[in-house]
């Protein structure tokens, strides 16, 4: 038995037969195990030791022991390969994690940049909105200006004021027109002023238009009055001043009006009638100033249409009383002082308008 083992050992030692470890040695030396040799050198060394043990056991004639050593070598070789693969996976994982960190950094930078951009965009949008509002306001202002500026901005209260002013101007225009007619103005001369008064009355919904038309009517009526005066033989120069002085001396109140020089007299009325004694003095005053027509007007404190009717009745009563006192009827016309012209504090007064003066 010893002799056989010795011969086998000699055969192996002299390379006389294939070693049982050869396939695993070939595997261990192959490229497939290069990573295992490099990254798990301790295990690779254990593999080689096991293979040596297997060869020794085979040489010693113990194939069962050789198989056990080969099994151990195979397990260790697989362990070395698994270890190498683990190291590769760990390295790959670290590389991926580093890449993930870089990607996340980039994403965070982008997100910060986006947040900054959005903040800037919000500021730009706000600025743009403010600018658009400015431009819109400018456009509106320009449109207002094109429509007539003030009109778009007047308040309800201002509108009411404008309407009252328009009514007053219309009444004044009517009085001047009446004076012009009394002085002999032709229909052609008064037509335009009459049309302007009508236009002012029609423009009730637009106070500015009504006011403008009333104002125009006043100017036109004044022109018509001027034209009629130019054709009429009027009072001598300075007669107007003497009329004022005479009125003051009589205790009357002189008033300068567009339609002529006026004299206001208190205490002429009693109810709807007149006080005769005072009428005589007024009639004498009129006779002293004989040029041109005279408008007899009356004003009462009573408001509304009833006040207007009472004023008209008093004016007519005074006109008749003056005719009765010797004043030429052709020279006189009667009218109530329009409500629009009464002023803030209406009085019980008679007014004589010498339209030629």
């Amino acid at each position, binding site marked *: 038995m010893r002799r056989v083992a010795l011969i086998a050992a000699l055969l192996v030692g002299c390379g006389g037969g294939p070693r049982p470890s050869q396939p695993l040695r070939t595997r261990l030396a192959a490229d497939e195990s290069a990573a295992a040799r490099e990254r798990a050198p301790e295990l690779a060394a254990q593999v080689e030791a096991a293979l040596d043990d297997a060869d020794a056991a085979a040489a010693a004639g113990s194939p069962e022991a050789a198989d056990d050593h080969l*099994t151990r070598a195979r397990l260790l070789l*697989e362990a070395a390969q698994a270890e190498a693969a683990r190291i590769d996976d760990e390295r790959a994982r670290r590389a991926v994690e580093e890449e993930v960190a870089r990607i*996340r950094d980039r*994403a965070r930078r982008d*997100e910060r940049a*986006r947040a900054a*951009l959005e903040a800037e*965009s919000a500021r730009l949008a706000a600025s743009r909105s403010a600018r658009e509002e400015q431009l819109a306001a400018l456009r509106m202002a320009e449109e207002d200006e094109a429509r007539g500026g003030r009109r778009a901005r007047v308040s309800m209260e201002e509108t009411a004021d404008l309407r009252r002013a328009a009514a007053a101007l219309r009444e004044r225009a009517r009085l001047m027109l009446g004076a012009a007619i009394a002085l002999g103005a032709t229909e052609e001369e008064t037509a335009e002023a009459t049309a302007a008064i009508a236009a002012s009355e029609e423009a009730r919904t637009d106070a500015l238009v009504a006011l403008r038309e009333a104002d125009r009517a006043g100017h036109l009526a004044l022109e018509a009055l001027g034209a009629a005066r130019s054709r009429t033989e009027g009072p001598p120069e300075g007669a107007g001043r003497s009329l004022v002085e005479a009125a003051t001396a009589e205790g009357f109140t002189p008033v300068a009006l567009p339609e002529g020089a006026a004299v206001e007299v208190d205490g002429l009325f009693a109810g709807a009638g007149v006080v005769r004694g005072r009428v005589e003095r007024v009639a004498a005053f009129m006779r002293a100033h004989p040029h041109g027509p005279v408008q007899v007007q009356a004003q009462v404190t009573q408001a509304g249409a009833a006040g207007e009717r009472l004023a008209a009745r008093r004016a007519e009563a005074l006109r008749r009383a003056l005719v009765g006192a010797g004043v030429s009827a052709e020279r006189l016309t009667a009218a109530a002082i329009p409500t629009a012209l009464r002023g803030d504090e209406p009085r019980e007064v008679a007014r004589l308008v010498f339209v030629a003066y």
Partner: protein
Amino acid sequence: MLPRALILVALLGATSAASAQDSPAPGTVEARAEDVRERVRRVEEGRGSDAAEDALGHARRALGAARRAEGAAADRAVSIAEAAVTLAERLAARARARNGLTQAREAKEAAMRRAAAAREALEHALRERARLRQALEEAAPPEAEE
């Protein structure tokens, strides 16, 4: 007095001998087998044990063979068990590493999606800012018109 002391020394010696018999001497087949059993248990309880199931089975079988064998055969069987549990440990570790790599790749995918979304949002914000700037320049300032 002396016999009592001898009895005490004898008892202490017997106790020490009994303790020595409970844990096998280091380097013996029994001690190595015990060590392998402990390593097997740790692999079984740790993550990645599924990938090491075959190697663990091999180690258990080798331990059984070592228990049945004697002498050199038992020594070789324990050596095989040691190699098998080493393989099991490496396979489990490799499975954990593979799992970590997979998770890292998934994280990378998520990070790339987030980065793509962030870049897209950034480009959109850039376009929006450019649009607003242009609109602002086109809307000439009132002062400039005067």
